[in-house]
């Protein structure tokens, strides 16, 4: 990710973040939709990538790359388009904190 795109992403996250600020569980709840495949709190039981402890920036970047096609995917390019960067940031913050 280039420096400017990081800054843009941070700006977007800042805006989006405030919209969810009144719900402390927003990231946890949003992430639970991913857990059906990636395991409860990201703890995959196998065959899918574990997301617990996954670096936040790396996750935001991975989903951006799925959306753009830069990272090959069977399904994540479609699912990734359902979320804004700010929403992925909220999800990624939750997963990064899972042991």
């Amino acid at each position, binding site marked *: 990710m280039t420096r400017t795109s990081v800054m843009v992403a941070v700006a977007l996250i800042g805006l989006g973040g405030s919209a969810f600020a009144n719900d402390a569980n927003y990231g946890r709840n949003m992430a639970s*939709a991913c857990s059906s*495949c990636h395991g409860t709190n990201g703890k995959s039981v196998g065959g899918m990538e574990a997301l617990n402890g996954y670096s936040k920036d790396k996750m935001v970047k991975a989903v951006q790359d799925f959306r753009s096609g830069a990272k090959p995917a069977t399904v994540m390019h479609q699912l990734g*388009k359902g979320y804004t960067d700010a929403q992925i940031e909220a999800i990624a913050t939750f997963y990064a904190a899972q042991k």
Partner: protein
Amino acid sequence: MTINRREFLKVSAAGAAAVGVGSLAGCTGTKGSGNVVIIGGGYGGATAAKYIRMWSEGGINVTLIERNTNFVSCPMSNLVLAGERKIEEITVSYDGLRKHGVRVIQGEVTAIDPDKRTVKLATGDAIAYDRLVVSPGIDFMFDSVPGLTAELSETKIFHAWKAGPQTIGLRKQLESMRDGGTYALCIPKAPFRCPPGPYERASVIAHYLKTHKPKSKVLVLDANDDIQSKKGLFMAAWKDLYSGIIEYRPKHEISSLDAGSMTVKFEFGDAVKADVLNIVPAQTAGMIAHKAGLVNVNKRWCGVDWRSTQSQVNDTIHVLGDATQSAPGMPKSGHMTTQHAKIAAAAIVNLMSGQQLPEPMHIANTCYSYVDNKQAVHVAAVYAYDTEKKTYIGVKGASGVSTARNEIEGKYAWAWAKNVWADALL
């Protein structure tokens, strides 16, 4: 199974008091208290049970009532029919939920009393709740097929649209069918549970027959005008892999069944005589939802508030899964049902700790279908809550299917199953 009724009522009263105190104090730090009873231990009920325990950090008591001993998955059960997997491989014990502190009761719920907030069991025991989750799945409308009865569907003409003995029964029939026999699958008009399910079933059974009884045929008799899901992908598989084996006939609504001669007649088109007849009848919300007066849409489905899955009829009752009137474009699928359960769990924990409903979360669906023993295809979509329309709507651009059938997704499909079962039950 014995339940100490007094103990339940006692716990319930204490729980109700605690909730009252919490909301009076405007307390937001608490993780909730009180008693939740869940009817049905399928994808919805099991996921809700685990997530309520987890998100309330053990604060909320959860009792799950399920009629079967174990969870048997409908998704992947077509692989059992095809002989690719054993029924044990798609069966999960409820012990994992017990480890989360869920009280699992094997039993049959006969009535719900919404005024007294109790659930009655066939044993006569009553269990008190502060909030009730009804996740009953579907029941069949046998009278939609003249000549079919519940009894016939348990002995001779299986639907296998609930996994378990039905799956085993149909598998045995396929095993003993002669080479050169006809397997006929009758699909009801949509909406039905698992839109791609029938077409996956036709595919994997065709794979089995092609490998073991190559002179046999698969006749797909669909009451709908067309294939209901992943049409292009199924048609390609049928053309490339099963030409001369699978024959698809749309617009075939059954007008009568003669179980003696194993013959089905249709409004339009030729009658069909089959060696193995697999009739999937039209479906409606599970019977307990009807009995409890929760069915308020087209006399078939339960309307809910999608921010919380609270019933439109009674806001202390949440309804999940295939029994609900789906939001537009939301399929009746196991995966979708787990998402309903998470909406419910988040809402219930908030409501039982004196908080507002959560900010609506996005939900996602993915249905994998096998087209043979190794290759699969998927359909996926993300849905967001629309505050104006008061329902979930597919996010624009965030949906799609596989580009082509492939073995990588055959592996992901099984990994999906293992992970979604663990997420619900372990």
